[in-house]
């Protein structure tokens, strides 16, 4: 038999595709993000403006803060579906307390609530061994319900307390305090994840919980900590947004959960745990925001925006699954 060059078999071609998917996942969302950024700069004259870009940053502040903490939860092998509900409750409570007591107390009470719910989430998942998806979904109903009861379903307004607005809307070098806080929080969590002992344990817990446990890692403590951080971050986002517009509605966070998860997953953090990074999440969230901003500036039908996002999300998850199968 002579060695004829033969056509690659289907399985080989699939392997090849899988390897390419792995490369795509490693480089992450950075390239699509840069391409979109460049394209929008060329197509839309109003895109590459200080005003527009800082607006995007300001609007994404809350989402990126929640997504950074949510990335920790995902890497540790969990998921938190209650972030939207915490966001709504914390915003409403902080606005309420800011009007009735004072702004600092309002801010702290919002954050404290977030911490409390996060800790409860952690206990539900670890101590009571309830699946994170279901446990936090149930908690999202409970938390939303509390919010509705506390506010009687009304919009909470703090228009007569402009000092509350300073928390989110003070401009420093032309950029809002909300955006600055986002930068600081995302950077801190990023460094924590990449450099700290805690960060190592987060990766270990999600990568192989049994190996981590046998290696002496207190897996449950790590999980609880990620949920607690996620709760505080969601509350922070709620407080920031309430502060920015001086009003809040307890039911306002329902869409936030999905926006945040989309950002994290499009960024390339695996939904199966053990992998991911804050840098990816930030770029993922910004990419999603760019797509929305682009539709906006180009005057495209917003319905197509949702379809586009859905397809991007499917692609991101698909690439993750492919690269895992063949790596």
């Amino acid at each position, binding site marked *: 038999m002579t060695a004829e060059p033969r056509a690659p078999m289907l399985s080989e071609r699939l392997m090849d595709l899988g390897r390419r998917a792995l490369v795509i996942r490693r480089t992450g969302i950075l390239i699509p993000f840069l391409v979109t950024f460049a394209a929008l700069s060329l197509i839309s004259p109003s895109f590459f403006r200080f005003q527009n870009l800082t607006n995007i940053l300001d609007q994404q502040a809350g989402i990126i803060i929640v997504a950074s903490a949510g990335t920790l939860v995902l890497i540790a092998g969990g998921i938190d579906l209650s972030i939207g509900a915490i966001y709504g409750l914390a915003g409403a409570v902080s606005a309420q307390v800011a009007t009735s007591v004072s702004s600092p107390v309002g801010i702290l009470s919002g954050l404290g609530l977030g911490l409390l719910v996060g800790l409860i989430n952690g206990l539900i998942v670890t101590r009571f061994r309830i699946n994170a998806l279901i446990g936090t979904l149930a908690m999202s109903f409970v938390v939303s319900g509390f919010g509705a009861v506390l506010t009687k379903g009304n919009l909470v307004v703090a228009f007569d307390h402009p000092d509350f607005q300073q928390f989110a809307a003070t401009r420093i070098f032309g950029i809002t305090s909300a955006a600055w806080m986002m930068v600081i929080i995302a950077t801190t969590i990023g460094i924590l994840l990449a*450099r*700290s*002992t*805690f960060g*190592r*344990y987060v*990766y*270990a817990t999600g*990568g*192989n919980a*049994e*190996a*981590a*446990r*046998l*290696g*002496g*890692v*207190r897996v449950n403590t790590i999980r609880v900590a990620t949920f607690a951080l996620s709760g505080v971050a969601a509350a922070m986002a709620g407080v920031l947004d309430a502060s920015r517009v001086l009003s809040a509605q307890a039911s306002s966070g329902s869409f936030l959960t999905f926006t945040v998860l989309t950002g994290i997953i499009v960024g390339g953090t695996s939904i199966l745990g*053990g*992998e991911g990074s804050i840098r990816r999440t930030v770029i993922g969230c910004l990419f999603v925001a760019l797509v929305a901003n682009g539709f906006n500036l180009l005057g495209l039908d917003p319905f197509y925006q949702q379809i586009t996002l859905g397809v991007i999300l499917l692609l991101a998850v698909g690439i993750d699954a492919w690269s895992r199968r063949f*790596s």
Partner: protein
Amino acid sequence: MVALTQDVHLDIRGLGKSFGATRALDDVSVEVRSGSVHSFVGENGAGKSTLGKIVAGVFPPDQGQLVLRGTPVSFHSPRAALERGIALVAQEVALVPQLTVAQNVFLGVEPQRGGFIDRGRLLEQTERLAQDAGFDLRPNALVGRLSIAEQQQVEILRALGRDAELIVLDEPSAALSAKEVEHLHEIVRGLARRGHTVILVSHFLNEVLELADTVTVLRDGKVVQTNPAASETEASLIAAMLGRAAGRAYPDKRPPAPGTAVVLSVSDVHAPGVAGVSLEVRAGEIVGLAGLVGAGRTELARAIYGAAPATSAGMAAGVTTLPGSPSGSLRAGVAMIPESRKDDGLLLQRPVRENVSLTTLPIFDRLGFVRRGMEAEEVGSALTKVSGTPRLEAPASALSGGNQQKLMFARALLAKPNVLIADEPTRGVDVGAKRDLYRLLVEIAAQGVGVLLISNEIEEILGLSHRVVVMRLGSVTAEFEGAEMTEENILAAAFGTAPAAAA
């Protein structure tokens, strides 16, 4: 049992099978006669289960041929084997617990009427099958509520319901009580009486001698002999299972001086699969823990390490009482290399450096952050010590099995343990890496660490251990030292056949 006049049901010709570097079966040829009970016996890893599984289509052979009643066949799946009348009743039952007996028996081949399942016929046929086989099973009972013995009967019914003529029973009595075993034996005899052929894979020699017409002994993947059961005894079977594989170089033994301090002492440990075990390990001593698969060795190791809940009258490392959690055990100076490095040891996607330092991060911690330079240095030197590749930043998944295992050793060594529990440290590792690991175990012990070594390879245990503890059915049945440490004695104690030589 006029063997000569019986025709051959299944002719196994020259089967070969490898798993990675391990040669599980090598040129295996056996004739299984119609209507006989044919037993495969051998040590752990001799290839008896693999042979049974190839016959039932669980995996295909690499070489060789199965000839079924004169026709060459090859099975790509258990389903294909079933279509040719061969069914496997596996060690672990494979039933749907939420379904009834009848639904499980006819799963996938339900009697139908007009596109719907004919429930009446389903119950009736199940009832009839159960009656024929002499089983006391209600067709409507939920399988999840049945005992393991009953679930096994459902599996047998499932095989019979598909007109299986050859039934492979893989370690059927391993999980049964004495009474249930008795009943199982009745069932096997009944099957043979009604003309079925039974292949019985078992490590209970008395069971084999009681039931089988023919016994094939396997060793290191090869057939040693196939003889009528009537001409065999337990002693003759054990003798056939013995024999040395190609010699492997073991380092010289350096047993600790008498009176060396005890570094691990446990008494009356109870855990799932462990029934009251006491043992001691001295500094510098390698204690081999031998036994059959399922004898409770891994369970004991996990209980000592605190990986699984356990009770005991006392567990201590040095002078520290073991606190019953992995993190506490590590602090008390006990490290464990788990049985399955992939499931219980490695973070496959993370770099080697992070894998090695996982248990010792607190050492490298400064104000909550990892001192990377120090970490890389220590991990690098630990890897060099175990003669592993210091490819610190490669993901653990990129390493060979041998290097992954060296990584696990490096992790354990970084913790500077007084006691090292090594559970199957050379599983799935090639010969060269095995030698490295043997040398490493001996060196670790020579530095004063007490080593508890679990291995399925008796040869390995004999080659490395200073003392051997044998477990059977969750208890320690024998302990051998010096000249008594022979393969014969260990096997006899592991199989529970002969009384251990008087100490």
